[in-house]
């Protein structure tokens, strides 16, 4: 059932087994899984069913560190959360990402990749992905071309899958509305976490509309699933009973903020005749849409003290006909509408999609024109490529989210985001490109020119809009905010869901792991609640 706290007088209280705050991929998948297991779920969403300026304004904050990032436009505060924005690239984290590493301080989760594998497999479905297969060998026989002949002990071909991208609001609205065990409330902003007096147990949560209509939610267990920045902001703002904020006894909440450094640099020139067909375009095969990149073998990553990275080849065509620079929101909305109409349906959120197209009409027209010309023009195969990646950063406690004086309409302090990009992060990426260049040279198929100078300039790096690490998972409460079950160390019935729990960022886009962790949490809560 979906209700709106803005319409009619608020109930005196809302009661369930588990209260989940946030309806992004984390919150929705957790709610649906818990409901399947017979638990009564209260699902709270601060925003409305669609984009609303006053709700979105609550996300505004300051950027005090690296400036190629923003705090408001990179998230969506509405039903479905930021899945209304995401572009859908998916891959699981690598086993290496979970391991403690002597050469990288603060590296290592209290769980392994194998612990997550069964949940990754279940998460695929939520995100409309193919089978849980991310080894190149799983797909090789079905692919239309051969991989680059590189020494696999050094550089191998890495597999990502592309989600349509799944918009959680569209895909799961009806399921949630029709689910008798899910009590979903819109415009229900979490404004306070109330601990039972003198204890380490959450008794209730206070929720409020922007107009001030308030109610209280009681449950046995509470989960905050509000995104990588907001999860930390909520804990830091909960200072009535714990002066530093709930879960912040060791000054860890908000620290270790990490993002993927989206960087397009370095040039690969392949020799004439080298078959690169697998790399620059997505490939539809065996029920999945694949994107293939180049990854350094984990043994070499350890030996050379690198960070993890997957390098994608972006073709540099002489003719702009082959440029995909028109793919922005307008284009995505246009192709979504086209696909839905062609199946004989009217798209959900038609007005939103339509207006996105109108706003970006130039780009949409360019896209249509280029697609048409590509059909008739002789195909052009590029031999020069740029390398694009969402590169990993080493965990850094000084990269952080803190509160500032300014308050939002709900009385919550806004945040300052001090995203740090270190020279070390960039030099590790430079070294990574060097290894790729050497592998390409050793195969005799081309040469690579590194784009990151020895004195690197952080200006090359843009946020991947993957906010991670601010309530990191660690077995030791002095090193992490949540334990291996995502429970806040210092509170018995409070859990965090989402990428804020990531101990390391790896180089995989986060949402598949966010969803897998949410499903794992559901299984855990189903036996404990």
């Amino acid at each position: 059932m979906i209700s709106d706290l803005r319409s009619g007088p608020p109930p005196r209280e809302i009661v369930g087994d588990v209260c989940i705050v946030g309806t992004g991929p984390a919150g929705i998948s957790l709610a649906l899984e818990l409901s399947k297991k017979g638990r009564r779920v209260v699902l709270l969403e601060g925003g409305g069913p669609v984009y609303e300026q006053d709700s979105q304004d609550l996300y505004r904050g300051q950027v005090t560190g690296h400036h190629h990032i923003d705090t408001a436009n990179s998230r969506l505060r509405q039903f479905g959360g930021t899945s209304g924005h995401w572009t859908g690239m998916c891959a699981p984290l690598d086993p290496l990402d979970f391991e403690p590493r002597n050469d990288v301080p603060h590296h290592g989760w209290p769980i392994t990749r194998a612990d997550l594998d069964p949940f990754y497999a279940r998460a695929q479905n939520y995100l409309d992905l193919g089978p849980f297969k991310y080894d190149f060998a799983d797909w090789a026989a079905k692919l239309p071309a051969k991989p680059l002949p590189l020494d696999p002990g050094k550089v191998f071909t890495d597999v990502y899958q592309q989600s349509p991208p799944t918009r959680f609001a569209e895909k799961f609205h009806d399921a949630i509305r029709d689910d008798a065990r899910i009590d979903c409330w819109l415009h229900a902003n979490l404004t306070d976490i109330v601990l039972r007096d003198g204890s380490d147990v959450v008794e209730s949560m206070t929720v409020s509309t922007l107009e001030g209509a308030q109610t209280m939610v009681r449950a046995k267990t509470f989960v905050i699933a509000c995104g990588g920045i907001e999860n930390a902001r909520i804990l830091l703002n909960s200072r009535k009973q714990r002066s530093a904020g709930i879960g912040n006894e060791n000054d860890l909440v908000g620290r270790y903020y990490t993002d993927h450094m989206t960087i397009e640099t370095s040039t690969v020139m392949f020799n004439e005749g080298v078959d690169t067909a697998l790399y620059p375009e997505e490939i539809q095969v065996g029920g999945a849409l694949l994107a293939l990149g180049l990854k350094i073998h984990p043994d070499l990553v350890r030996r050379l003290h690198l960070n993890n990275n997957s390098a994608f080849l972006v073709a540099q065509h002489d003719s702009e006909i082959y440029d995909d620079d028109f793919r922005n929101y307008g284009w995505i909305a246009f192709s979504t509408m086209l696909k839905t109409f062609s199946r004989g349906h009217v798209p959900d959120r038609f007005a939103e999609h339509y207006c996105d197209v109108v706003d970006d009409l130039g780009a949409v027209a360019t896209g249509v024109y280029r697609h048409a010309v590509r059909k008739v023009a002789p195909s052009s195969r590029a031999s020069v490529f740029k390398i694009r990646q969402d590169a990993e950063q080493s965990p850094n406690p000084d990269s952080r989210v803190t509160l500032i004086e300014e308050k939002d309409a709900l009385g919550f302090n806004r945040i300052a985001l001090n995203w740090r990009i270190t020279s070390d992060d960039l030099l590790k990426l430079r070294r990574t490109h060097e290894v790729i260049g050497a592998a390409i040279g050793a195969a005799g198929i081309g040469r690579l020119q590194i784009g990151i100078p020895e004195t690197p300039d952080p200006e090359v790096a843009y946020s991947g809009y993957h906010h991670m690490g601010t309530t990191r998972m660690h077995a030791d409460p002095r090193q992490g905010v949540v334990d291996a079950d995502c429970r806040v160390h210092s509170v018995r019935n409070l859990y965090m869901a989402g990428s804020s729990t990531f101990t390391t960022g790896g180089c995989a886009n986060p949402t598949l792991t966010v969803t897998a962790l949410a499903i794992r949490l559901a299984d855990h809560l189903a036996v404990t609640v």
Partner: protein
Amino acid sequence: MATFTRRALLGSAAVVAFGAVAYGGSRFGCAFVPRNHPDFFSLLDIAPDAPIARRIGERALELGSLPNDLPGFASALTERPLIRQALAEDCPTVRRTLVQDQCALDFAAQRTVIVDGWVLSETEASLCAARMLRPQQA
């Protein structure tokens, strides 16, 4: 003032004649002795005379980690087995392939240098650099 005597003149002529015969004979004889006398300059033609290769050559010399004279390059390069083979090879295509294979071996053995951002094998960087040092042909 010294005067040339007949004897001195004949003696000198004999020395010169002997020297000439010895030299000519040696040249003739040595033509049949297999030796490793690389035609180093012609190998440098494998590095293209393109602006990018010249720039790489200049930058490689600036690096300071490579030799700074032709004999230095010659001896460093002739240590590489496939370069030795290439020097003894007449067919330009085979020579080129041998040099490319040597570059690939360098990469695999991590004998690489970064010149102007390019990740290069030491062999190709050395060839580009040495080409810059080659005396200009008339």
